[in-house]
């Protein structure tokens, strides 16, 4: 575990969340404890221009959890991911991120247009100067995992929006991430493509057991994907409600038509409208 407190980095080496001083009911009971992978404790963020983006945000992501944050646009949802990944420094509070690789998929696929699908998927390991032979094998395998076998030599220009997102997913999957951040990755896609990719990520989540933190403003997407949904208020963003999503995995598209699915979505929707 590395601890980042008050915006200053400090490394604390303990194997599990149980060893840290922050009290947590799951962590204090060793028989029940699952590894805590990401934890925000009263994190606030005020930008230099005075914009108050986040106010006292606290939540945890454990191993085997897929947490989704829904909220109105501009409420600071993406800021949470930028802080978690270290791209931004928060102004108050503290957060902890488990050791291990971090996956991070942006709103845009952000593929390098001059690289082929294969070269794009190899990029992260290349930047980390990993082993060359292993890199190629991992990339080929991952491309197959996301259903793009045969497209290795294509340039991004020739791919559809959904396929580009798959490449972006594959690129992060090569790192076998322990925590996987998703910043509204399917917002620009059509509904069918979006639902397919929702199922795809659900499948990867079951297989790879990463801790997922997903941002969206689509409530059905949030309920379909997650084990837990957090509702955020508009700026400054605060977590105003938490919902546990009880559905079993694997989840298929029929789930979207279950009464319980509709009920939960309706409840979250009403909550969100209240805090808009």
């Amino acid at each position: 575990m590395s601890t980042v407190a008050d915006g200053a980095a400090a490394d604390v080496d303990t194997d599990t969340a149980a060893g840290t001083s922050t009290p947590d009911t799951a962590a204090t009971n060793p028989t029940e404890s699952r590894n805590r992978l990401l934890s925000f404790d009263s994190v606030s963020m005020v930008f230099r221009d005075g914009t108050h983006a986040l106010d006292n945000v606290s939540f945890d992501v454990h191993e085997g959890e897929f947490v989704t944050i829904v909220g109105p646009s501009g409420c600071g949802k993406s800021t949470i991911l930028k802080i978690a990944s270290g791209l931004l420094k928060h102004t108050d509070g503290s957060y902890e991120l488990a050791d291990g690789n971090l996956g991070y998929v942006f709103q845009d696929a952000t593929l390098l247009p001059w690289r082929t699908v294969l070269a794009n998927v190899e990029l992260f390991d290349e930047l980390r100067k990993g082993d060359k032979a292993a890199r190629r094998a991992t990339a080929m395998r991952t491309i197959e995992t996301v259903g793009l076998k045969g497209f290795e030599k294509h340039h991004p220009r020739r791919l559809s929006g959904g396929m580009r997102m798959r490449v972006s997913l594959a690129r992060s999957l090569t790192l076998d991430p322990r925590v996987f951040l998703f910043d509204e990755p399917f917002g620009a896609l059509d509904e069918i493509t979006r639902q397919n990719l929702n199922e795809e990520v659900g499948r990867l989540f079951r297989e790879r057991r990463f801790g997922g933190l997903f941002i969206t403003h689509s409530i059905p997407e949030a309920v379909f994907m997650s084990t837990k949904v957090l509702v955020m208020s508009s700026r400054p963003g605060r977590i105003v409600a938490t919902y546990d999503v009880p559905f079993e995995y694997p989840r298929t598209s029929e789930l979207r038509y279950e009464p319980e699915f509709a009920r939960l979505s309706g409840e979250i929707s009403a909550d969100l409208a209240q805090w808009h």
Partner: protein
Amino acid sequence: MRRLGTIFPPLAVFAGFIGVWYLYSAYVLDEAERNISLPYFHDVVDVAFMNGENRGELLGATWTSAWIAAIGLVIAIVLGLFFAVLMSQARWVERSFYPYAVLLQTIPILALVPLIGLRFGFGIPARVSVVVIISLFPIITNTLFGLKAADQGHHDLFTLHKANRFTRLFKLQFPTALPAMFTGFQISAGLAVIGEIVGGFFFGRGATDLGNRIQLYAARLRSEELIGAIALSAALGIIVFWFFGFLRTYFTSSWADADRA
């Protein structure tokens, strides 16, 4: 058929241009005027290109202009890339150097000619200097623009994976800049030819180039050869422009947006 469609319109315009030229020479000018300013098109072809001696003179001069321009352009590309990379690395470097890059563009080259002559003599090094000065600016600006045009999302990726400055430069900024860089080279290549010929007007020592020839033909009222030399200057400019356009297409068309290729 599509090829025909791209070739025919400019050919028609060329034919129209030659037609207007004939009309002007025949009906506006009298014979004396015609001989010293604008002879008929077929006379130009006859004297400048069908006469072996004249053709040899002109083609030799074109070759000289081509290699002097090429040396200057290569030096300008090396210097231009160096300064563009330097300026892309820190705001303060850009702020320090950029005004002088602009200055390079705004000083009339003719004003610098005496100074260049005094320093480098009146031979080939002086002509190369003129080429370098005149073609440096588009390379610097286009490359710098390209290096700074990398997407913020791409920069974030490189930050997340702890890429250093050089990795970022070579794996992100240079590829991003490639189409703009080639556009800069293309503009500069045309300017290099012009710079070489302007240089030739003032610096005649060493090999004889198109600038030297143009000056000589004008002084001796050899209009046919003068027009031939002008046509070859234009042709040389077009060839280098095409060459860099071809390079850009070759290196970027498989991935770059169609509107930039």
